[in-house]
Each structure stands twice: as structure tokens, then as C-alpha cells.
């Protein structure tokens, strides 16, 4: 399976599997190596990186919600130079493309960072994250700052506000892919401190919101590939995004709760599930498929599970 997730150009990005972790949920490739088989993922999107180092947000950073969480980390990172020094060797050894998520701070910083990443052999593409409240003019300047300084694909992660305006600008400024979307922002009261905290919301409930946006973007901008990102918590969720018009998907906080699910979704969408040999036992990765299970029951002539249930009773 080979999926091109960028517009055709000098350096198209082609993935084996249309599934990758979302920025900010998977570190820099240095974690989850014991729990997830990286070879089954399409790409690795790094944690957000800025030109200059950033410190963590003060006060409460995580608030539990009903079936979700609100997080405000402040996007702490070492800055692009130190990040590259620290992870360059690791990235060159990993068996999948590396997409560095760049925080859109100022056009000048984005320009310098893009130029810096352009020289890095181990980096295959950039994903530019834009502020939720960014104006159309600022977005154009920011995206242009990235696309003008690198030959590598520049993917633009759209905010959930003014999504379609920014998408049009991204298209005009030479973005190679649209990532829809950064999860919505919200405010919640931290039960420990009693303070109101603002941050990004994660959980299964945001999938419907972003799925609609992906469908509309795919209709309006058929000329540019879209990556669906937000609220994916099962293989079916990921397939829904593909059905809505996404070329690939990013899995976010599900990885924190059930790390193996990222690989399971990647196997599912990557076609690994249907390659079982005939007569194999039920696939441990996808017990719901069950066709081999039915075949086994037919072969032995009775339903073993039903019989065991009956004996237990």
C-alpha cells in the first residue's frame, strides 16, 4: 500500500500506512517504542517545536472532563536547534518518515525554522501549527514563511475557527497538505484548584465536529490531500474519516489511554488485517472480524463457546 499524502511536487510524501500519531501525543520517537511497532505506522509527527525554547504553562495543566480531558501545557520544548541535536540520530534510525510539527510563533521564527529543517536529512516534512485566533493576513504570512524556505512538504494544521478561510490561504501559499484540525479550545474548572483553565479539548466527543469539517474541506478543496485528526478512538472512527474524504488520519490522545490501539488502527487501515493466512485462528488484532472464527466453528461441527457456556450453567 502506498498513499501520497501531499500534493504532487518536488518532494511528495508517500506513506505505507495512512495512520500516524498527532503532534503532541507521541513525543519525539523516543517513547512508546516498547508498546507500538513503529514499522506499522505511516509516519511520526513529533511534539510541537518552536524556534526558541518554551517553558511549560504555570498552574493546572490538565482538567478531567466527562469522557475527555482539557490540556494546556504551554507547548514546552527545547527549541529547534536543541531538539535537532537531541533527536537527529534517533530519527535517522527509525523505520518511518518524520514530520516535525512547527509552532507558528512569528513569521521570522517560522522562516528560520523551516530553513533549518530543510537541511535536515532525517526530516521528511513539516507540519505548521497555527494559533486559533490567527487572522487571514497573518496566516498567509506564516504559511508563506514556511513554504518559501523549504523544498520539503509543508502540511498546515488548521484551527477550528476560520477553518475554510485558512484552508484557502494555505492552498494559495503552497501548502502540500491540510491537517484538519487542531482540536477545539475550551474552558473548564479545575476541581483541585477551583480555577478556570483554558486549553485544548480531547476525547471521543470531538470526532463528530472534525469529521464534518473534513467532509466539507474535501468537497471544497479536492485538489489538496487532507489528513483527518481529532477524536479517533477506534478503527471504525478512522475509517469514517477516510470515508469523509481524508487521505490519512492522525490519532491523538487515544494513544495515552490504550497505546496498542494506534498500531491496531494502523494495521486496520494499512491492510494488515486481511492478510491472515487461510484457516488462521481469530486475529488478535481484530477479534471483531471473526470470519476465521466462524470457519473454525464450522470445521469442528459445533459452537465450542456456546457448548462451554451451557456446561458452565
Amino acid at each position, binding site marked *: 500500500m502506498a498513499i501520497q499524502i501531499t500534493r504532487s511536487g518536488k518532494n511528495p510524501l508517500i506513506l505505507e500506512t495512512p495512520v500516524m500519531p498527532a503532534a503532541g501525543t507521541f513525543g519525539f520517537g523516543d517513547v512508546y517504542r516498547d508498546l507500538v511497532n513503529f514499522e506499522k505506522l505511516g509516519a511520526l509527527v513529533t511534539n510541537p517545536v518552536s524556534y526558541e525554547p518554551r517553558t*511549560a504553562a504555570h498552574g493546572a495543566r*490538565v482538567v478531567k472532563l466527562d469522557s475527555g480531558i482539557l490540556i494546556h501545557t504551554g507547548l*514546552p520544548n527545547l527549541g529547534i536547534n536543541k531538539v535537532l541535536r537531541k533527536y537527529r540520530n534517533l530519527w535517522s534510525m527509525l523505520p518511518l518518515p518524520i514530520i516535525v510539527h512547527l509552532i507558528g510563533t512569528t513569521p521570522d521564527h517560522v522562516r528560520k525554522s523551516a530553513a533549518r529543517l530543510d537541511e535536515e536529512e532525517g526530516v521528511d516534512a513539516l507540519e505548521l501549527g497555527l494559533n486559533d485566533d490567527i487572522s487571514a493576513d497573518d496566516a498567509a504570512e506564516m504559511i508563506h514563511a514556511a513554504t518559501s524556505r523549504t523544498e520539503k512538504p509543508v502540511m498546515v494544521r488548521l484551527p477550528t475557527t476560520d477553518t475554510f478561510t485558512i484552508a484557502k490561504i494555505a492552498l494559495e501559499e503552497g501548502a502540500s497538505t491540510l491537517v484538519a484540525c487542531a482540536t477545539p479550545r475550551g474552558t473548564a474548572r*479545575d476541581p483541585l*484548584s477551583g480555577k478556570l483553565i483554558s486549553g485544548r479539548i480531547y476525547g471521543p466527543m470531538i470526532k463528530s465536529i472534525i469529521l464534518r469539517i473534513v467532509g466539507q474541506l474535501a468537497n471544497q478543496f479536492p485538489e489538496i490531500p487532507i489528513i483527518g485528526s481529532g477524536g479517533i478512538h477506534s478503527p471504525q472512527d478512522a475509517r469514517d474519516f477516510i470515508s469523509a474524504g481524508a487521505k490519512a488520519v492522525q490519532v491523538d490522545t487515544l494513544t495515552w*489511554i490504550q*497505546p496498542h490501539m494506534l498500531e491496531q488502527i494502523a494495521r486496520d487501515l494499512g491492510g494488515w488485517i486481511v492478510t491472515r493466512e487461510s484457516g488462521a485462528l481469530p486475529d488478535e488484532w481484530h477479534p471483531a472480524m471473526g470470519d476465521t472464527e466462524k470457519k473454525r466453528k464450522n470445521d469442528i461441527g459445533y459452537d465450542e463457546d456456546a457448548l462451554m457456556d451451557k456446561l458452565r450453567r
Partner: protein
Amino acid sequence: MKQSEAIIERVRRINPAYQHLELAVDEYMNRIKPGQSLLVKMGEAWHPYLREQWHPVSIAGTKLVIERPANEHYEVGQVVDIFGMVGQPIRFRRNLRNVLLLAYDTPPTPLLMTIPWLMGNRVSVTLVLVGTARTYDTQHINPEVEVIKGDDDLNWQNQVMTVGWADQVLAVVNPDDELTRFKKVVARFEERRAIIPQNYLFGIFTSLLPCGIGACHACMLQTRQSWALVCTDGPAFDLTQITLD
């Protein structure tokens, strides 16, 4: 870091507010050390969304003993999904003789795993409960541990003596505003001791851990040198090395 399953083999109410769960765990989990914890998910539902952090309080043979609030319902035979072990073991000083455990406005649960380990190494332990921690019932704790209950303002009897006598201090505070509370603890120790040496006063950070593996950076602390993550570098940090402002 591994993901595995465990079975609740026994549920025992230890006092009106807390219960102990005996968990039959994978063999590797019995190597858990004081300071390390587990991230646990019960069932398939998405509420609660985050994995809960469970602090073991002792190891009974091949079983881990976990302390949970009594108002949470658990059943014998229940299977729990475990992600762990989270964090690093606490680095105890060499030639320890006396250790002071301090719980400030929070139950001392994250500290309790150290007690059997320290007692087994002939280290004497004093447990100080201040603020709301005073309501914690200590009847189930080893009677050789000296328990002192203080007031709401980080005062307790013989404070100068206990602070001076301790070779190492481990403190846990309410996670509502950990940095401010730890700052208050440091200030109190500075009043009672001329110098706070390195590797003497440790804070056990109990902030929420969304990933527990170092991916989300939601638990990042600023240190004097750089930064550290509670989930992978902690939970115990020398408070003289953490930027508490």
C-alpha cells in the same frame, strides 16, 4: 514500560476512608520500587477518560497492595488494565538512619510504600500529617512508625528536633497547587535548619499524568539546569533543584 492485566484478589477496608486492594500481577510488576506507580484503566468505557494513578503501599508475596478511597467500588475477580511501572524509584541516601515522611493537606498514600522498605533496612521512620492529612487514620500503619499530627500551618511538635534528626525527608502535598505548597514546605525547613543540603528534602509530585511515558509533557517541571518530567524522571525531586516560583 509495559501494559498488562491484573486481577483484584482481595478487597479489605482498612479504615472508614480507605480500602486496600490485593492485586495479582505479572511477575515483573513485583519488582516495583518505592516511588513508582501504576496507571490503571477499569473497563472499556471512556469515562473516566484518563487512566487513574494507583500507588502501591506494599508487596504481599506475589501481590501488590494498592490503597484506594473507600467510596470507590471494587470487586474480587475484577480485571484491571495496568500501564506501568511509572516513574523512577526514590533515591535514598546512603547510610540512612532516620527518615521523615511529611503529608501536607493530602493523604500520605504515595509515601507508604517506603515504610516496609525502610523498616526492612533498619531505618526509623516518622510520619508527620499536617493540614487535612491529620484526618488520615493510621491504625493500619506499622506501629514502629512514629506518627505525629500537626496543625493547618505546617507546624508540629518537636519540629526543630525532627527536622534536624532526619537524614532525608520525603514530602507529599495536595496537587491543587503543588509548586506553591512545596515552596511553603521549603520555607518552613529553611526556618528550622541552617542549610538544606542536596538530596535531603524531596517532594513527591502527584500531578495528573495523561500519558505516563513522557510523550505529552503535561507534567513538566522547570529545574535549575533544564527541565524534568514527573512521569519519567520523578515522582521524587530534590526540592532545592526545582524552580518553585
